[in-house]
């Protein structure tokens, strides 16, 4: 067993969420997922409203997992920069490729 880990852990951890918090977050994630899937089956829901619900739900779920399960909320800001920086670039890549190819989520294609 590597005893160096014991010294490593308290040096950078700003405290993690409790088990109760994890369970609460999981319940919220399940509810958001149910809303997201349920929206697909709502008859007559306009396409742009459906896309909006799905994207907002996805962003919320993404943020909850990263903040609480991946402990980014409690960890060093440097780790947030290491992850969010490339995430912004990735989002820009997606939007740039879609713009170049004339593909849009909300607007009908010509």
């Amino acid at each position, binding site marked *: 067993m590597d005893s160096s880990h014991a*010294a490593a852990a308290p040096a950078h951890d700003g405290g993690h969420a409790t088990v109760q918090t994890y369970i609460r977050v999981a319940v919220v994630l399940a509810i958001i997922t149910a809303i997201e899937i349920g929206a697909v089956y709502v008859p007559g829901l306009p396409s742009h409203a459906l896309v909006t619900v799905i994207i907002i739900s996805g962003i919320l779920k993404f943020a909850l997992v990263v903040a609480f399960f991946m402990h980014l909320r409690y960890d060093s800001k440097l780790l947030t920069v290491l992850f969010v920086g490339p995430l912004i670039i990735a989002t820009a890549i*997606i939007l740039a490729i879609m713009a170049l190819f004339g593909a849009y989520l909300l607007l009908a294609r010509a």
Partner: protein
Amino acid sequence: MAAEHAAAAHDPNIGCTGLDHRKMGMWAFLGSECMFFGSLIGTYLSYKGKSINGPGPHEILNIPLTSVSAFVLLMSSLLMVLALAAVQRNDMKWGKIWLFMTALFGAGFVGFQCYEFTHFVHQGLTLQTNLFGSTFFVLTGFHGAHVTGGVIWLLALWVLALRGRLGAPDSLKVEICGLYWHFVDIVWIAIFALIYLIP
């Protein structure tokens, strides 16, 4: 700051930032993975609806089935944090149980994906059929490969725990594996929303 420097002097894994190199390395890796999957998702969305021949997504994607598999993967993230919490408090009985359950849920997700892929091939959709087939299989296939890698990693930790070589002092090993596992979960959150749910 003085405490961080003292820790750095004793532990070769702690750098001048006061952070563990292995954890920072994993976050940097996950950042690069964001760009990797961002490119694949962008390519899928760009080619969406541009296939000359079928079958297309509306004819073939099974939302109820994939909703179940998405839920399984989402709940595996909960099991992963429960495993980490158990290992951190040196409760290795529950640590082993949660690690194994996380791997089992991950394997279940891969099973769903294998079934889905097989079903699609029987329906006439392969990697070569059309733009939808190429971009869909490459994107979800790479994600499935990542999940498979995560399952193997989790099982390796579980075996270490069974042999008594994993405890609270090694909790960082579980935490880093957990970071990877949650990442494959958030990638699926994006894939599920953008590929399966958006019409």
